[in-house]
């Protein structure tokens, strides 16, 4: 009864993984026969400015997205973690963007960020500030996307934090109150440490998510301005679809998987050490 699944795994999981590694050493445009490229792809990748630009862009993205995600998700979760009127409504409101397609969100925010007719600039002007060329200024483009992705996903992480908050025993909360802690001290000594597992999850998931960024730059900026929003997956896609370089594209794919793995492991190590403190 599990045979179909086994077949599926072989065909659509095992074979692609193996073949991906094979492709790294091939040159292929899907039309003519593939040719051996040896280590060329790897060498090219190591020196490929565009690739490393994309990786750097991702780190720019993560440096804004991850802290912002933690702060907003945690803040909203704390606000929602009490007996509230219409609690279900608030939760549903924050979670709404999570269920909406990334393409739609990207298109929507392209228009919100539009320099001239965009809603955000219109509001800024209304309150007396000057408009910002969000998506066309190389310095603000990636941060703008980071804010948008935070907005889209925060509801998901709010749910994670809310679940974590339920697990803090009531007696601990009451004990620390009786011991004399102020609201800030309660947060610092009890709430925040208790939420460490959730925070780790938020960091890991949003990091992986950040490395997999595609539709947002694809729709909003095409990778510009000045390639500052060029993402790794976008580069991979272009190599396959536009430039027809299967071998190289596969190399990017493998490299990305390795980078993600390395980053997640390092994060685990760093947080593990912080936790021991």
């Amino acid at each position, binding site marked *: 009864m599990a045979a179909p699944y086994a077949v599926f795994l072989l065909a659509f999981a095992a074979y692609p993984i193996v073949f991906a590694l094979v492709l790294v050493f091939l040159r292929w445009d899907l039309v003519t026969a593939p040719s051996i490229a040896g280590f060329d792809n790897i060498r090219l990748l190591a020196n490929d400015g565009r690739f490393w630009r994309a990786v750097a862009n991702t780190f720019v993205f993560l440096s804004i997205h991850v802290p912002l995600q933690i702060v907003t998700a945690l803040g909203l979760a704390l606000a929602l973690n009490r007996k509230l009127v219409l609690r279900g409504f608030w939760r549903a409101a924050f979670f709404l963007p999570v269920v909406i397609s990334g393409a739609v969100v990207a298109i929507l925010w392209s228009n919100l960020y539009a320099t001239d007719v965009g809603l955000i600039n219109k509001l800024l002007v209304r309150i007396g500030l000057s408009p910002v060329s969000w998506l066309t200024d190389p310095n603000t483009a990636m941060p703008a996307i980071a804010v948008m992705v935070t907005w889209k996903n925060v509801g998901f992480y709010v749910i994670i934090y809310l679940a974590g908050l339920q697990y803090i*025993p009531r*007696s*601990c909360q*009451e*004990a*620390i*109150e*009786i*011991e*004399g*802690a*102020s609201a800030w*001290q309660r947060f610092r*000594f*009890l709430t925040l*440490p*208790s939420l*460490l597992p959730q925070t780790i999850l938020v960091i890991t998931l949003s990091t992986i998510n950040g490395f997999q960024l595609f539709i947002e730059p694809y729709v909003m900026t095409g990778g510009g301005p000045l390639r500052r929003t060029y993402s790794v997956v976008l580069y991979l896609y272009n190599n396959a679809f536009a430039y027809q370089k299967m071998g190289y594209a596969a190399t990017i794919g493998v490299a990305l998987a390795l980078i993600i793995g390395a980053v997640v492991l390092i994060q685990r190590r760093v947080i593990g050490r912080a936790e021991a403190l």
Partner: protein
Amino acid sequence: MPSVSFDHVRKTFGEMTVVEDFNLSVADGELLVLVGGSGSGKSTILRMVAGLEEVTSGTIRIDERDVTALAPRARDVAMVFQDYGLYPHMTVRENLSLGLRIRKIDPKEIDRRVTWAGGMLGLAPLLDRKPKALSGGQRQRVAMGRAMVREPKVFLFDEPLSNLDAGLRAQMRIEIGGLQRRLKTTTIYVTHDQVEAMTLGDRIVVLADGRIQQVGHPIALYRTPVNRFVAGFIGTPTMNFVEGSLQRENGQLTFAAEGVSVALSGNMSTDGRSEKVTLGIRPEDLRVDPAGDSAAGGLRGLVVLVERLGGTSHVHFDVGSRPHRLMASVTNDRLPDVGETIAVHVPPQHVHLFGADGQAFSRST
């Protein structure tokens, strides 16, 4: 000066009144036990002292200071919770010292207190462990230590032994009692276990449905319960109850129920009370004569079950035509067998009588 005083304290949750007009003074250094079943209001009262529940009306004072509207952290009380409430991500030492660190007490003083409490409770080797590496009894001690280092005005215990097994409970009972006597800190202790209440309390408050049933020293509650609830709640095994009525025959006051007749002592004040009464007699006060000798004023009982517990045994027997099932605690060497008829003597001086309203008939001395 009373350490803690309750003045017409009342607590309602919406339509439901959980605590009715609670008035009490707790003396300085006293260990007061609040005992009752679930829903009796005992935990609510404790939590109102802590500040974890709002007082609907009335005043609570600690050392003459009105704390009714104060936040928990301003009241200088410390609480030991049923599930201990230890901070899972901190070591024992950090758990003990957090309250002091928050109050910015000098680190040397913190160390001194932690060492002192740790020593008293046998926690010294555990100081660097986290709660999940501790046994239930050890966690319980850490919870107590945490309360002790604060050197508060009042200790509040919320059923601290409920999560321990019977053997550990008995041992911790003694330790807590000893500890409190050494520290001399006023303590309010909540439990549903009347054995704990009897062994620990300087005074006991029996609660039911949010009302005080009786306040007093443990033996006073045992000897002279003021109503049927307290009589049935205090004392193990539970008091025997028989419904019947009072009769006067030739100047002799008698209790009568279907086929049962018990002579009562003359100094029971029965004026103006209803005829229908409940007789209460503790199993340990009944005298069983296995020979079946129906002495005057005695009952004849048919044995239905004998629980042999070693030193003491429980003899369950039927009397009267109903029949009424009673139980006697006996220490005789010769125990009756099931099916035997026994003679049971009811000493009038140990008889409790309760009217239809549940109130006890008092004895004039």
